[in-house]
């Protein structure tokens, strides 16, 4: 049986139930999204944007679908979509690429969505934190949907954590599959720092698609940090649609064991005078697989574009694999675009220097890896998160992260 079939049957059986639990604005696009999914199915590895992740296999096991309602503490800016203070119909499933199979499947199956709405000229000082606790005793599929609307002049920091949930000791854990679609709309002059931190277990598979729209004079920073996971595929599409905007995409990924981390980004410069910066770093150890594909497209009239894309990778074991694919597609002539990509080993002379001075080899290696990742962590503006990540990354390289939940520092 093809992997798609069980989802098609699931939808045919459960669509009425999902629709009842959901709301009008989500149901409005549901059937069309399902039709779209039926016609395209799961992508094969021949599809350019899915070269490095075998989607059909990840979706093949039989998962139960979770329809639990979202647990949202009432606050000023966070709502479930049913309680939206504004009309979300012009936003929901509009910027998301309807032809992407994961997005289409998510739109068909998702029953509830989170809305973060920051009103005009409002500065939200404390970060808005979304925690996803992942834990389950039977194989479960979760479909998550987040809509972020930054009105003009709004400013906020949003942290989305994927973390291992607390459960009873000795409880046997099952595989979990997550699809996530985040749509971000930044109106003129808005500023957003969006952090996505994944620190889960090898049993978790995650397929996340982020779509960002930027108006005039906007600034968006998106940080995607994969500390610990099973299989991850992150897609991030940015559309620069107003002049003088900028976007920064940062990412770091640490792989060990048989983890799989695939980041796929696409930045589309549609108007002149925009800036984009991209920095992704990977350390792959064990039999893990890292993949990075980043495309920057500069349209014909997007003159005076400045763009820099950097991807640096460390292969730490002989079984680890790294795929990288930084791409430029440029149709305007007055631009400055550059990309660089490296895959390499640790500097032997630096290791030797440290060992000379009495630092044990393992320690020296861990110091070097830390310094390598430090460049990405340094970019994090929100101080407490930055400090926490320094500690977490260090622990991760020492292989102590599994113990981390019990220590006070990381709480």
């Amino acid at each position, binding site marked *: 049986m093809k992997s798609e079939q069980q989802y098609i049957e699931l939808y045919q059986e459960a669509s009425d139930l999902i629709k009842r639990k959901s709301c009008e604005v989500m149901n409005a696009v549901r059937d069309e999204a399902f039709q779209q999914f039926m016609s395209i199915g799961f992508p094969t590895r021949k599809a*350019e944007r899915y070269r490095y992740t075998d989607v059909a296999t990840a979706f093949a096991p039989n998962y139960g679908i979770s329809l639990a309602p979202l647990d949202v503490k009432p606050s000023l800016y966070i709502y479930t979509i049913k309680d939206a203070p504004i009309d979300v119909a012009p936003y929901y499933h509009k910027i998301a690429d309807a032809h992407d199979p994961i997005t289409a499947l998510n739109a068909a199956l998702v029953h509830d969505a989170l809305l973060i709405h920051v009103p005009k000229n409002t500065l939200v000082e404390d970060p808005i934190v979304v925690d996803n606790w992942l834990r389950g005793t039977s194989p479960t599929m979760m479909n998550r949907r987040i809509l972020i609307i930054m009105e003009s002049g709004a400013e906020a920091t949003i942290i989305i954590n994927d973390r291992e949930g607390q459960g009873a000791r000795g409880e046997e854990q099952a595989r979990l599959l997550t699809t996530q679609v985040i749509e971000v709309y930044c109106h003129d002059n808005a500023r957003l720092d969006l952090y996505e931190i994944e620190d889960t277990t090898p049993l978790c598979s995650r397929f996340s698609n982020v779509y960002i729209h930027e108006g005039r004079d906007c600034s968006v920073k998106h940080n995607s940090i994969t500390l610990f996971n099973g299989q991850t595929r992150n897609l991030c599409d940015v559309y620069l649609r107003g002049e003088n905007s900028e976007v920064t995409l940062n990412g770091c990924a640490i792989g060990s064991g048989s983890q799989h981390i695939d980041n796929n980004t696409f930045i589309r410069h549609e108007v002149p005078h925009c800036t984009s910066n991209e920095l992704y770093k990977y350390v792959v150890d064990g039999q893990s697989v890292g993949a990075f594909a980043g495309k920057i497209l500069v349209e*014909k009239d997007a*003159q005076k574009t400045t763009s820099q894309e950097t991807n640096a*990778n460390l*292969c*730490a*074991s*002989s079984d*680890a*694999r*790294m*795929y*990288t*694919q*930084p*791409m*430029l*597609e*440029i*149709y*305007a*002539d*007055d*631009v*400055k*675009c*550059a*990309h*660089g*990509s*490296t*895959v*390499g*080993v640790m500097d032997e002379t630096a290791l030797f220097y440290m060992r000379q001075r009495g630092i044990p080899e393992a320690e020296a290696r861990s110091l070097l890896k830390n310094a390598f990742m430090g460049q990405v962590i340094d970019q994090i503006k929100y101080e407490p998160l930055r400090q926490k990540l320094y500690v977490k990354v260090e622990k991760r390289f020492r292989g102590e992260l599994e113990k981390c939940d019990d220590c006070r520092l990381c709480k």
Partner: protein
Amino acid sequence: MSESNSFVRSLTEKKYEFGFTTDVHTEIIDKGLNEDVIRLISEKKREPDWLLQFRLESYRYWLTQTQPAWGHVHLPEIDYQAISYYADPTVKKGQGSKGQEIDPELMKTFDKLGIPLEERLALSGTAVDAVMDSVSVKTTFKEKLSEKGIIFCSISEAVKNHPDLVKQYLGSVVPPKDNYFAALNSAVFSDGSFVYIPKNTRCPMELSTYFRINARNTGQFERTLIVCDEGSYVSYLEGCTAPMRDENQLHAAIVEIVVMDNAEVKYSTVQNWYPGDAEGRGGVLNLVTKRGDLRGVNSKLSWTQVETGSAITWKYPSCVLRGDNSQAEFYSVAVTNNHQEADTGTKMIHLGKNTRSTIISKGISAGHSQNSYRGLVRVGKHADGARNYSSCDSLLLGSQCGAHTFPYMDIHNNTATVEHEATTSKINEEQLFYCNQRGISTEEAVGLIVNGYAKDVINKLPMEFAVEAQKLLSVSLEGTVG
């Protein structure tokens, strides 16, 4: 940069100077492609049965495939039945067989192209195999080379005279099932060159092949096979032109290179097929599979290409670095203007230990053209200590053109060091200003900068070939500005 700049104008409005046709009687077989046509081609070339079977098998595989469309080019749907797969300009009128004498028209054609077929007139130090349409017209200096044991002849002759060598190596680097166009070529290939350099021999002269498409509604499917045995060296050059025609002409070639222990091959291409007119009508579709297999330890292969012609160029001269300590280089300048499209680059497959590769690619786009670099660097699991450096720069002359970079890196070994960098920009305003300050006009300054930009690669071309290459490049890159 403004389009009024006369340098840019001269570059984009440049006329194609090799667009003449030769009025010579040419025997062309009927259009269409089927097993009978393949049998006919094989029969005309008096080929042994194994080669016919090789062709038929390739053809049957080709039938099961569809034309690929993943390139960043607008490849038209090609009607493979509207092409004639064999055109022989050497057959005399009224005679069934080939004349011994070369038709003076053909001699004149190659003279006009700057490739004299008379040995006494030829540039000393270069042996030429001249191929028109489907047939090799003449190979010069054959005897002189054979004194050293070097075999340099057309592939049809090689099949007759050295069947064992051909059978051993043909299809061993680019198998017929490699890709769609490789399968097509393996089914219908006509002439190309065969080079065999025996052990411990340094080829005393540059070997070169000049390809010319002349006949209407034909395609050229040449096949080149170069085998460089242990401890030997050869430098091989390839040039190509075609007349101006309104319809697209298909050129689907295969080049296979085998490099043994301690051997070195330099392969240089100056590709100047007809690029189509200013509106993008006509031009050659250049769909070529080129690959070198560095089988031996310490072997070395270097691809240098200067791509100025063709409506569509879609090719990736590649290297399989199988032998330990082998080295590969790829130097490319691709110039596109008007409505030309190029999607070219290289593949470096590192399999042996301590293998090294360098990729230097320079793209220049003008007019409405699209110029893409696409390259793969793969480091296999056992390729310890592999090293790659890639650099691809694109220069944009004009606001209607595009420059794209699609590098792929697949690394399966933790001791590999792979670096890639790419930049895309227009001509640096500061450099222009610097030249202007010192009394150099903007036109001249642009000429200087573009020329300097491509020099890295042009300098890699062998000196002996400089006569044609320099002439072509000065026309392509500098226009009226010296």
